[in-house]
């Protein structure tokens, strides 16, 4: 199982390599996992990932680190995770759903 840092790094790299996937998207995501937070900022095809909470995230995704990693690595369907309350979303739900297409 990879670490959360690798998953976020992968998302960052994917956005950089395929900026057309996020063209026109400007958003700040915060991920609250077990004992750690991460911030993903996307602006016009560029992405930056950093550890820690964001100042004013558009969307905050809350999950245990294990559940998040299972979602990111294809072992847990994101919609099922949401329905089972393993994944909670605060803020702009539309942005959260767009993230699904950015997972490796």
């Amino acid at each position, binding site marked *: 199982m*990879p670490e959360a840092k690798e998953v976020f790094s992968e998302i960052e790299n994917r956005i950089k390599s395929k900026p057309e996937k996020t063209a026109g*998207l400007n958003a700040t995501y915060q991920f609250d996992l077990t004992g750690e937070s991460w911030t993903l900022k996307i602006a016009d095809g560029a992405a930056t990932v950093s550890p820690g909470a964001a100042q004013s995230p558009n969307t905050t995704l809350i999950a245990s680190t294990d559940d998040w990693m299972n979602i990111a690595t294809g072992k847990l369907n994101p919609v099922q995770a949401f329905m089972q309350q393993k994944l909670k979303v605060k803020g702009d739900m539309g942005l959260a759903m767009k993230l699904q*297409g950015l997972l490796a």
Partner: protein
Amino acid sequence: MSDRLVTDVSVSSRPITESPLTERQWVRRGELLEAARRVFERDGYHAATVSSIVQLAGLSQGAFYLYFGDKKAVFAALQEEMATLLRRRIYWATRDESDPARRLEAGLNAYFEFYDEYRNWMRRLTVEGLGIDESFEARQVQLYETLAGGFAPTLGELGVRVPAVAAAALIGMAAQVAYWKHYQSQDGSSITAATLARACASLFLHGAASIQASQPEGDANA
């Protein structure tokens, strides 16, 4: 970073540029997809009906048609969703494995684990999916090509001279072995994904004589 078995795994049935669903719509669509998968697994594609899907989901027929045009459309969406999950699993199972032989085994293991988890869906897809129409076959061909294209560099590292052909054969072998385990062998279900992956990697790289008698466990005729 090692070569990766699957390099593009971002396919989703809903392109990111589409109008976003609301939270309620996202959940409703997910409920319908999950119910549809269970109905297709239980009844098969041809016997499945929109009525049985919405009944299992606890939703109305009207709700179904907000998201899918017909039974074929929901099957196609499921085909893409499941393919995305499979690609994603293989990708993450292999991306950091530097040794090509172990990477090959890890990729096969991820495939067999996925098949174990979704055996009924994979069976329906194999038996019925390709016969629905050409678009279903095209999606399945695309998935196989993506998987084979991901395995080919690893096979090249292992000294295989025509990696593209070998990778296509590898995917075909894995699909058939998984089907055999679940639907043809009387006691194949006791074989773990890891054991099957090890046996298949060995078979593929070193020939059938290389498979140890103890693997796959539980079936000496494997």
